[in-house]
């Protein structure tokens, strides 16, 4: 118990003193997860709009499938990306294995179902009369989609934040395809995993505290958005 308490005190010191290693790991985590959330949003928001505004056979099944992938294990995606980008894999020639780029890619795959599913839900939540009003005012199909997205903007932003939260807190992908290389691909979750196994609880607790703080800020932002 004393060890944990001392670890906690040391963690606060590391955070308050802006320890370079802690800051570097936290910064990398943020950059990788923000990038994956933004890039996934660029793909998912238009794709969700296409799915929402078009009627095609199997649409309901597709949405159910997307929702099923909300809870896919991160190690399953880690394995999939590993096979894809390992030297012997189909994309091995790109030499992206154990780089932040492949970590971003893995996280994008992880959060795509969440972003897609929640954006479709957000668009479905917009009153149908908004679509009629926009069309009756002469909006084209694209202009109508933009106005509906604008109406759903707070719910869509909440979806992006949820995606970011899932990305920054995952460990499976970062460990399997990032390799936890110090100063290069080490992020908060992989560092906690490593330092705990080494018995360095102080650093683990410091990083864990930062992760909780980030989660807290994400939740705070989410609440603020949902209150609008």
């Amino acid at each position: 118990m004393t060890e944990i308490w001392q670890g906690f005190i040391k963690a606060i010191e590391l955070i308050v003193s802006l320890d370079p290693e802690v800051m570097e790991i936290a910064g990398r985590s943020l950059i990788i997860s923000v990038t994956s959330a933004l890039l996934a949003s660029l793909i998912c928001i238009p794709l969700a709009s296409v799915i929402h505004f078009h009627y095609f056979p199997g649409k309901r099944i597709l949405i159910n499938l997307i929702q099923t992938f909300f809870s896919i294990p991160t190690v399953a995606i880690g394995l999939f990306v590993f096979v894809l980008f390992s030297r012997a894999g189909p994309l091995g020639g790109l030499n992206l294995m154990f780089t932040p780029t492949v970590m971003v890619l893995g996280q994008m795959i992880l959060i795509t179902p969440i972003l897609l599913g929640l954006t479709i839900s957000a668009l479905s939540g917009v009153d149908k009369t908004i679509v009629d009003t926009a069309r009756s005012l002469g909006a084209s199909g694209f202009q109508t989609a933009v106005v509906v997205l604008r109406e759903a903007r707070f719910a869509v932003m909440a979806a992006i934040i949820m995606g970011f939260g899932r990305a920054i807190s995952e460990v499976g992908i970062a460990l399997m395809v990032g390799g936890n290389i110090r100063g290069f691909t080490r992020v908060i979750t992989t560092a906690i995993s490593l330092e705990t196994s080494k018995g360095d609880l102080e650093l683990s607790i410091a990083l864990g505290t930062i992760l909780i703080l980030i989660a807290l800020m994400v939740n705070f932002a989410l609440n603020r958005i949902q209150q609008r």
Partner: protein
Amino acid sequence: MSLIEVIDLHQKHGEQNTLKNINIRVDKGETLALIGPTGAGKTTLLRLIDLLDLPTSGKIYFDGTDVTEPGRVRLEARRRMAFVLQKPVVFNTSVYGNIAYGLKWRGAGKNSIHQKVNSVLEMVNLSVYKDRNARTLSGGEAQRVAIARAIAIEPEILLLDEPTANLDPISTSRIEELITDIVNRYNTTIIMATHDMTQGQRLADRIGVLIDGEIHQTGGSTEVFTSPRNREVAEFVGIENIINGVIAASKEGVVAVDIGGKVIEAVSDYPVGEEVCACVRPEDITLALSPAPTSARNSFTGEITGVVSVGALTHIKIDCGFPLIALVTKRSAEELNFEITKRVYATFKATGVHTIRRD
């Protein structure tokens, strides 16, 4: 040439025919009111005219162009119209932003949008709310924003679906004034749906009566309200006395309608033996406590069976051997002490009786 021409339009929702054989022509600058009870198909028809939905069959011509089939031509035609939905829908942005939407979609420049929005805001008297979020406005104000947003794009046709439904009398009056103002300023062609027949009478040049998905009658308001074509229209336009009978005699354009022992005289061309309905508007019936000399050809005595006051008017139900409803001012009803079981004399002119052939 008509600006809008609807030919043999049918619309089905599942197995239900929501619109049947609709034929309408609306000329430029004309105001047509589609009146009919709730669920008659007015909104469905307006949606089809605004090209929001595709009809099951039939044709819609806009300014001479067939716009029934899907394609770019529908968007181009829709951009020359504006539709204000029954429920005032405003986008989650400022009042200014709401009105600017349609102009932005048409590629208008920033300065021209600014000028147009400000001028329309002034017209609807909402300039003070310019920067306010439109979602925070009252129902009447939101409806004015919806109308302002529609007229900002200077549509050739303005479609209004129950523009004053669920509004208080003051807001209703403001919206009606606004519609009149739009017609006077822009000479906009208007097609409006309303279940309030008196609103149609106040605002429209021509009235179309839509009941159960069919246009039963179109014509001037006087024609529709005094000479309904059939029993359904008569009932909808407020003729409360519709009495079945047979033409028993006819002489010089005046017929005697036998209503089962009693006779009602009416101005009509129907031949003897024709089965008809004699329609008498309650406000055309005069009530008195004693027989008075009158030129009216129809006079019946009966007993009051019901007295119902609605605002400044009172409906008096009388049993004359057949049921009759008369409308008098509340003051008259009180002065003459009209009450149940009292005997009264009901008189009305032959010209006040409209006859409809029974199907």
